[in-house]
């Protein structure tokens, strides 16, 4: 396949979808209304762990304007347990989208109502009486794993949903003869994407067509269709899922949990039913993420070379991480990637994933790669400090070198390409690291404001292919030439704000010598596109772009055969450029002319030679050339296709009197291989990084020990605002990937992976005079002061009333 010169890949094209979005003509799920539509609301459990003794819905059913009131038991007539989204050696509970005998977390739906308006549906909730027998609850990860903890699923005998581990090399000997052994305990709290558009689903079961149509705010329409069909035991080919514009997903919208409830209500009433969740419902029962604690042991030689890593991560997936959502899998990914971008001689890891009385756990920008990055990048800076090395120098000594690729990491994955040292070097230049350190030295202690800089490097495994789960291992897409010479791309990928509606046009335009305006991407309708899997683990720029580029190339090859036959010349000599197929120095046929010839004048019989495959459209199946599920001799497998990388820095000013952290500057250097649209890439870096800063400083789902959630509105679940973050400087290193068609690597998650570690490193750097070690996130002002109070130096300087 001749690689065409890239005119559009690499261009910062303005986005096609922006015209409708800036004028208010976007079409999000809640914007859609259909005649006869009812509205759903759900009664949710006020208790975290309780048996349902009785549910009396008689008064609610009698209310005018109420058309259906269904309990978990009623619903069993229509559906089975929630279909599992993942089962890699996990305990899969039998759970329903409406609680039946037991509730497992505060906010779990117990009764579903369909009424004329959302107002009436909410009114009707107060006419339902549920009698609960409250059970003891457990929310802390280590408490849930301890013997004697209240069990969510007694038949399990414990609260462990899955466990896994591996060991490579002489671990114990390496630690025995190491010059230094460092130990760390590094927890991270629970928070999530909390997109501005919550979940929304408009379901319509048409009995006369035996067809269920579901409009839904989802990142994966095809996956939702399969899960809905499985949960209802309904023929999948009679389900259609339509995903219009999506108001942000970030990984949270990859399953069919409460989305099946409007389907239930439509089956029960025979009418379309729309459910648009309130912010409370999203915070109580939307997917929640992170929530883990690492125990790390690192063996280092006296000249600062990493020898051995012995790690354990205990994860908390709330009530379930298999059926409500696929969150359990992220701790397997975390365990496999904790070695990060560094070289090791011996490695041992174990993970145990606990269930507890909290909301279900899904994916959020990272799915384990963020979990893997956090402990090691904090440990690297703390160890550098202990060894008297700069954080950058200690990393540089241990990076995989740029000439060692493809490099098989000790835990199994093959890193495709990169230049980790150059990313770091460019970062230090971009943020003017030395100047900041000089300024820090000159100002330290002169006022209550302490300057600090923290760095973190990262690895962003992308293009995932995970066995026995919805995040599977292929992509299918179609590229179709229209009679008038335009091109349609039919893809299961979903634009959730990352701009694929535009970037995929740039790819196809280059392949077929067209302009992006000649190409339209069709997505978001399971009856109109092949079975593609949607955006997660940056699948767009890896699986999807490769699949579509290769489909376009195959279509071009077939078109060249047709033209070569017409012109009686060699197909190999032809090129596609400026909207036409060209014989260098000779004849030229526009795609419009070719399209008309193929379809109309004279039509296929007249122009298509017998041996040419379909010149109209090509549907291509692409899978990763490097991912592999067959264990190698050490039992290791490879789940990801490419390994983008990068480094970033945060500069903070910590007020030692109030504990407030001000983020003064942020710089990111990213290596995501070939860049399709630089402006869109930088937009992802800005947005992802600020989400990470939110997690580090202010976002938290705080459950007390009884399982009561304290963050049920936006006065207590705090997103970063425009005033909380500065402008962000970006730069790039480009190491094309050998494993994708265009050398692209994906970059949707990397910028969210780094900020927590960089923030902890920055705050510890700023407060070095007080010897502070962060033991808990988020770093609210209160928590910073609690840390500082442990320092006698601080108490002398700042204790009030001392």
């Amino acid at each position: 396949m001749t690689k065409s010169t890239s005119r559009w890949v690499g261009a910062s094209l303005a986005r096609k979808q922006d015209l409708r979005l800036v004028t208010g003509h976007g079409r999000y799920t809640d914007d859609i209304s259909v005649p006869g539509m009812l509205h759903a609301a759900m009664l949710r459990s006020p208790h975290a762990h309780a048996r349902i003794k009785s549910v009396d819905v008689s008064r609610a059913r009698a209310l005018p304007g109420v058309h259906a009131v269904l309990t978990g038991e009623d619903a069993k007539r229509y559906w089975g347990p929630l279909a599992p989204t993942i089962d890699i050696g996990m305990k899969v509970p039998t759970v329903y989208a409406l609680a039946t005998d037991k509730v497992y977390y505060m906010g779990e739906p117990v009764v579903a109502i369909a009424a004329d308006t959302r107002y009436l549906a909410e009114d009707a909730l107060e006419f339902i009486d549920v009698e609960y027998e409250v059970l003891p609850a457990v929310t802390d990860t280590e408490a849930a794993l301890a013997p004697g903890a209240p069990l969510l699923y007694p038949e399990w005998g414990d609260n462990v949903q899955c466990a896994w581990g591996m060991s490579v090399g002489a671990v114990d000997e390496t630690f025995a003869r190491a010059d230094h052994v460092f130990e760390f305990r590094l927890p991270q709290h629970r928070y999530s994407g909390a997109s501005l558009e919550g979940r929304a689903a408009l379901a319509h079961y048409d009995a006369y067509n035996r067809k269920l149509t579901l409009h839904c705010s989802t990142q994966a329409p095809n996956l939702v269709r399969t899960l809905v069909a499985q949960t209802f035991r309904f023929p999948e080919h009679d389900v259609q899922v339509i995903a219009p514009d999506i108001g942000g997903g970030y990984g949270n919208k990859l399953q069919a949990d409460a989305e099946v409830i409007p389907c239930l209500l439509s089956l029960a009433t025979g009418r379309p039913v729309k459910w648009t969740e309130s912010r409370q419902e999203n915070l109580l029962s939307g997917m929640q993420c992170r929530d883990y604690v690492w125990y790390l042991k690192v063996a280092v030689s006296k000249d600062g070379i990493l020898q051995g890593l012995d790690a354990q991560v205990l994860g908390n997936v709330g009530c379930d991480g298999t059926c409500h959502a696929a969150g359990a899998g992220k701790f397997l990914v975390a365990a496999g990637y904790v070695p990060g971008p560094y070289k090791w001689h011996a490695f041992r890891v174990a993970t145990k994933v606990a269930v507890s009385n909290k909301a279900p756990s899904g994916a959020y920008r990272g799915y384990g790669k963020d979990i893997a990055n956090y402990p090691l990048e904090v440990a690297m800076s703390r160890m550098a400090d202990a060894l008297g090395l700069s954080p950058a120098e200690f990393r540089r000594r241990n990076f995989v070198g740029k000439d060692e690729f493809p490099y098989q990491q000790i835990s199994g994955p093959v890193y495709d390409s990169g230049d980790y040292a150059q990313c770091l070097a460019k970062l230090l230049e971009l943020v003017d690291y030395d100047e900041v350190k000089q300024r820090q030295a000159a100002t330290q202690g002169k006022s209550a404001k302490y300057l600090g800089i923290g760095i973190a490097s990262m690895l962003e495994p992308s293009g995932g292919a995970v066995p026995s789960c919805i995040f599977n291992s292929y992509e299918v897409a179609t590229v179709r030439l229209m009679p008038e010479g335009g091109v349609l791309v039919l893809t299961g990928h979903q634009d959730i704000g990352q701009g694929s509606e535009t970037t995929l046009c740039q790819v196809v335009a280059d392949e077929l010598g067209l302009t992006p305006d000649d190409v339209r991407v069709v997505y978001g309708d399971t009856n109109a596109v092949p079975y593609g899997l949607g955006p997660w683990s940056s699948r767009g720029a890896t699986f999807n772009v490769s699949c579509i580029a290769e489909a376009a190339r195959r279509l071009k090859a077939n078109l060249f055969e047709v033209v070569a036959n017409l012109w009686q010349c060699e197909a190999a000599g032809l090129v596609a450029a400026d909207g036409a197929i060209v014989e260098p120095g000779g004849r030229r046929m526009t795609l419009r002319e070719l399209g008309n010839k193929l379809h109309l004048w004279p039509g296929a019989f007249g122009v298509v030679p017998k041996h040419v495959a379909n010149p109209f459209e090509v549907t291509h199946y692409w899978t990763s050339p490097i991912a592999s599920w067959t264990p190698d001799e050490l039992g290791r497998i490879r789940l990801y296709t490419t390994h983008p990388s990068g480094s970033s820095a945060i500069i903070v000013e910590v007020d030692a009197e109030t504990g407030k952290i001000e983020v003064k500057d942020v710089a990111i250097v990213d290596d995501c291989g070939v860049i399709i649209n630089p402006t869109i890439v930088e937009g992802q870096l800005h947005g992802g990084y600020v989400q990470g800063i939110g997690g580090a400083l202010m976002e938290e789902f705080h459950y007390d020990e009884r399982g009561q959630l304290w963050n049920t509105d936006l006065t207590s679940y705090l997103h970063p605002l425009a005033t909380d973050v500065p402008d962000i400087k970006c730069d790039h290193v480009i190491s094309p990937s050998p494993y994708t068609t265009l050398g692209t690597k994906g970059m949707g998650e990397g910028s969210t992976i780094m900020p927590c570690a960089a923030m902890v490193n920055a705050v510890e750097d700023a407060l070095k005079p007080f010897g502070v070690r962060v033991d808990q996130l988020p770093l609210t002002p209160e928590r910073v002061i609690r840390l500082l109070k442990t320092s006698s130096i601080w108490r002398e300087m700042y204790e009030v009333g001392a």
Partner: protein
Amino acid sequence: MKFEGESEVSGTPPVVWDALIDPKVIERCTPGCQSLAVVGPDDFELVTKIGIASISGTYKGRMRIAEKLVGERYVMSAEGAGPIGTMSVVGIVTLQDNGDATRVAYSFEATVGGAMTGLAQRALLPIAKLLTKQFFKRVEKVIAGEDLPAEEVGS
């Protein structure tokens, strides 16, 4: 969240004691109480309509009196659920003879739950304190035979 307090209630301890554990008195003295059903010995189900400041709504609650030491002390536990969420209060009420009046001291531990813990949590403790003060003031009036004002403070 803890809250304590005490009230001077005219009447001797035995008189005050009888009033405090009498369901009919509890029904009349609990601010906004719409109904009280005796479901067992010292076990009552109440429906109260709260109208304090902008917090208003109907709350279904369960109140139990236990560990009674006649004339001296008892343990009161109550849970309520309503629009604001769930709230449970457990505490000890003690009576001391103070000449012609009885000093009633209470020390309660309140735990809050339900969806509204975020916004409304700031209001729950102060309101719980206010309702408790009002309760004991109304008990005093009942003992003294005075009629009860319809609505205390609060718009």
